[in-house]
Each structure stands twice: as C-alpha cells, then as structure tokens.
C-alpha cells in the first residue's frame, strides 16, 4: 500500500516543476487572450472581453493575415528547400556515399550558432556598403550590384529564407545521414543486382525506407519554421514594412511595442493550432517507430 503512494510522491517534484514552468504560464496566457490588457494604461490585466481579441485578429486586422501568409510561405519554402538540400548532402556524406568527410563535425557548425546570431551575421553580409554577399553577388551578376537586398520586400524575404535554410541544413543533414546509415545495405545492393539504376534504387528502395525519418524531419522543421522569431527580429525586424513579419514576430510586436498583451496572447494561441496538429503527427510517428 505504501509503495503505491510512494511512487506518486517521488514524481511530485518533477510534476511541480513542469506545472510551474510550462503549464501554468500556458494557462495564464490562455486566460489573458480573453481579457483586455493595455500595458500602456494599466499594470494589471483588464476585464474579460470574450472572443473579442480573436475576432479582432481574424476579422479586422489585415496585418494579421499578412503575417499568416508570410509565415506560411516562409514555412513551405524553408521546409522544402532545407529537406531537399539536406537529403542531397546526406546522400553524398552517408557511409557508402560519394564523399568521405572525416570531419563531419564541421558540418554542425552553423547549427551551433544561435538563430539571433545567424540573423545578425546575415544582416552584415547583405549590408549594401560593406556586406560580403552583397559585394559577391554584385561581382557575379553586375545588375545586382546596386540592389539593396534588405530594403526590397521580396529580396528581404528571400534573404530571411536563405538564412534559415543555411542554419538548419546541418542538423537535418545529420538526422538524414543517421537514417541512411541505418538502412539495411543489402536492400540497396539487391536493387542494383536486380537491375536498378542508381536513381531507381534510390526511388524504389531507399526513399520508401527513409520515409519515416523524412516525415519526422519535415514535421519537426515545420514546427520550428512556424514559430520563427529571433532570426527575423535580428535580420529585418519584420521589415521592410511588414514584408517579413511572421506570426511570432507579429505577436511580439503587438505585445511589446503596442503593449496590447491580451491581443498578443490571442495571436500566440491562434499559432498553437497548427502546432498541435503537427505535434500530434510527430509524436505518433516517433512512438510508432519506437
């Protein structure tokens, strides 16, 4: 009998910590999203206003929809490009691939950098006066010499996407190298002997076996892309205008620039919805594999 109670007692500290640091703030922000709280007027939250914050975001705010479109395009581009490029690199670097890099650790370097640092360095790289990339592109393609990368809405967005891909390729590549290395070698060799070309062996034998790992990579990367904030904040701060403003940046902007805490909380909770869907699939894949 005592054992039955003891086990709950033993996990209690962990439960308390998780509740205090994760669940309690979540509940607070959810409650906040149904209240009005202008930090510029009062330091205590105001009255409950029902779904008004949500309806304001969804129905009255073109900037919210702009941020949603930016986030969606950003996610599709970064997830797609990162996965494709990382898969290509992983195929070259995996055991039995064409390249042998004994110092694969070098590869992880960009991932070891904080996203904010990636943002700052890319901002400098594309600086019109002394940026390395700016000068480099100008040299390669002269018409681009006069382009001010971060001042043009489309190009600024492209630079954000590039910085994200650059930062994420190493990690995704490592995960995929692991996945490729775990494939049974004989299946691919059997395909070659059966008469498959390199591409056919990849398409018919490697890719289907790699699908679970690819699914996890895509879901995981999508979650991270949707909640991108720090990199954008340091690189363009959402600009020019709102051209690179993601939902996370939009929520931050409303909370800490306009001090509209209740509205910011509702935006954050709208973002949670796609995350829940993705997390559901992610955990399902992970636990099915385990």
């Amino acid at each position, binding site marked *: 009998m005592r054992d039955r109670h003891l086990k709950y007692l033993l996990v209690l500290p962990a439960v308390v910590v998780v509740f205090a640091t994760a669940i309690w703030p979540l509940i607070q922000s959810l409650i906040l999203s149904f209240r009005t709280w202008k930090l510029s007027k009062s330091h205590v939250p105001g009255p409950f206003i029902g779904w008004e914050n949500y309806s304001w975001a969804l129905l009255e705010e073109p900037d919210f929809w702009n941020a949603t479109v930016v986030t969606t395009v950003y996610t599709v581009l970064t997830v797609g490009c990162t996965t494709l490029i990382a898969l290509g690199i992983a195929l070259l670097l995996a055991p039995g691939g064409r390249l042998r890099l004994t110092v694969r650790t070098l590869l992880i370097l960009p991932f070891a950098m904080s996203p904010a640092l990636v943002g700052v360095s890319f901002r400098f790289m594309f600086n019109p006066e002394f940026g390395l990339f700016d000068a480099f592109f100008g040299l390669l393609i002269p018409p681009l010499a006069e382009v001010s990368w971060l001042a043009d809405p489309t190009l600024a967005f492209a630079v954000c996407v590039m910085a994200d891909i650059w930062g994420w390729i190493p990690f995704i590549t490592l995960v995929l190298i692991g996945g490729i290395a775990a494939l049974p070698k*004989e299946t691919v*060799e059997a395909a070659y*002997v059966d*008469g*498959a070309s390199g591409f056919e062996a990849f398409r018919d034998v490697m890719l289907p076996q790699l699908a679970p790992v690819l699914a996890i990579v895509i879901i995981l990367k999508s979650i991270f892309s949707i909640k991108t904030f720090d990199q954008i904040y340091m690189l363009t701060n959402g600009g020019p205008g709102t051209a690179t403003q993601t939902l996370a940046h939009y929520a931050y902007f409303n909370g800490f620039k306009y001090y509209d805490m209740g509205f910011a909380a509702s935006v954050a909770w709208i973002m949670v919805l796609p995350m829940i869907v993705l997390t559901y699939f992610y955990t399902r894949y992970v636990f099915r594999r385990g």
Partner: protein
Amino acid sequence: MAGVRLKDVTKRWGAVIGVHNQSLEVRDREFLVLLGPSGCGKTTTMRMIAGLEEPSEGEIWIGDRMVNDDLPKDRDVAMVFQNYGLYPHMTVRENIAYPLKVRRVPKSEWEERIDRAAARVQLGDLLERKPRELSGGQRQRVAFARATVREPKVFLMDEPLSNLDAKLRVSTRAELKHLQHELATTTIYVTHDQIEAMTLADRVAVMSDGIIQQLATPEEIYDNPANLFVAGFIGSPSMNLIAGETNNGSFLAADIELPEVGGGSRKGVVLGIRPEDLTVVEAGSGHFDAPVYATELTGEAILVTVVVGSQHVCARGPRHMRKDIGELVGIHADFSHAHLFDSATEERIARSS
C-alpha cells in the same frame, strides 16, 4: 548461360589485401563453391563478380564479355544475400516482380513468371504478405524466387543458408541442389560451412588469406588435400596433423615410429591422417600405444583423443567401446589415405619417393 573467369584479380583497401592475384575459371552450368574461414576473401570475390566491389587489378569476364566497367545491373547476374536483402516495404509479389520491373519486362509476362518462380520454392499462398510477416526460411525462399524470376547468366549466393536453423538448413540445402539442377545455371556459392560445400558443389575452391588454396571436386579435396590448410580445414573432426620426420620410409615423431609410410628420409614433415583411418584397439595390438586424453560419443562411433608426445591425435573406436581418461590404448593406422606435408612450405609431398 555463361561461365565466369577471373584473371589475376586483386582487391586492396589501402594496405589491406582482401583478394590476392586470383585467377579462377567457373565453367558454364557449374556449381562452384568458394569455401573458407571468415576474412579469407570469398565474399569479396563474389561481390566483385556482382559488381558491388571494384577490383584493384585484374579482369572479370562473364561469358565472353569483360565486365570490369559494367554496373551490376548490366552484368545479368542474380544474387541471394546472407540477410536476404528483401525490400521491406514491398509485398512478396512486389519483391519478386522488382527485377522484371526495372528490366522493363512487359507486364503481360509478369504474372506467369512470378507464379512459376514462387511455385518453384513453394511460396504460393504468401505472395501478398510483407517480408516481416515471414519466417527466416520463408524469407530465404522469397530471395531465391526473386533471383530466379528472370534467367540470369549467373547465380551468386552469399552464405544463403547461414541464418537458418540447423534442421531447415539441411532440407533447404537439398532443395537448393535440386533447384540448381533444374535451372542449369552457373552458380557461385560462398560458404564457410564445409558440409554445405561438399554436398552442393561440382567443384570447391578452398580459400585462405585471399588466395585459392585448392580448386577441385569435393572428393579430390577430401582425398588429396593440396596443402596443410586444406587438410586441416576440410573434414570433421579434422585431419590429424602430426609433426615429425621420415627415415627411410618410416615416420618418426615423439613416442612413435610408423613403418612403411613412405616419403624417403627428410626432416620437417607433417603426417596427415584422418580420424576414420585410425582405429582404437587394445593396448599392444596396434601400431602404437598412447594414453586417452578424452572420449566423445557421436552415436555411430566413439571418438578417442590420445596424447602422442605433446600432440593430440583423434581416432575412432566402435560405438560400444568405453575407455577411461589416462588409460593406455592401442591405435591401428590405415595409411592408404594418409598424406605427408612439408612443414616449411606446407605443400603436400609425394609418399612414394
């Protein structure tokens, strides 16, 4: 249908030599077994024939075509892997159909050929299953069916039975032999199991250290091993190899003198004689006496290991004989199948000279 020829093939990885200057001719429709301990280069030799490894030097011919620069898919060989190598995401039917698919065989022929290949190895009702739903023996059958669904020039089999349990291995061995006879296709088979080699092969190539030590029929290899390695590797229990010298046709080693063995007079000689040619008799009535070291009952006979000098010698006794450890017994030797080897070169030397 085609033979396979290796001309001075060498495989090196850096300083490590896997296969050393190997030449080998496999005849059309022959069942050739590459036999040797692990690491002897037998699998590497097969993988070079399949095109999965590139030889460092030398030429590989299949039929009348040099295939060194051909991709595996262009060599028209089929291979059965030790771990089956089945495609886990495909059904048995899709697995067997894959060679037809990538070789652009018209779809109208698929069903008949798949059914024929599946029937040959009794897979009929398993076609819609996934490999993970099959037992080891069934998976091996799928691998055979996939290899036989088209008519390749050469079958390559890399220890295909080693993952099966002992009983299944024996029955599959017989089926395999029948299958090869039926298909009449050149087959190269890699194994470390000498029983498999003896039972299956038309000819056996015994390999060690990347070199073929002897290439001959199973009988020839068993009766006339070319050197000490082959003599010790083939046969179970293995051949007794007793170091000593000859003097005027008599073999001399510590504690024993065996007359009329042959070999003239020379030092550094190893006498090779199989346990079945040594019979345990009462002390004093054989060629020599020796104390018992251990006895093992095999069922149809008893194996008695005795101590001769510092060496162990294994002999056979009748099944009802019981001897205690340390007891003195006599050993009667039949020299008609005995061999002499030079202990320096390890080659067999003629007994008549």
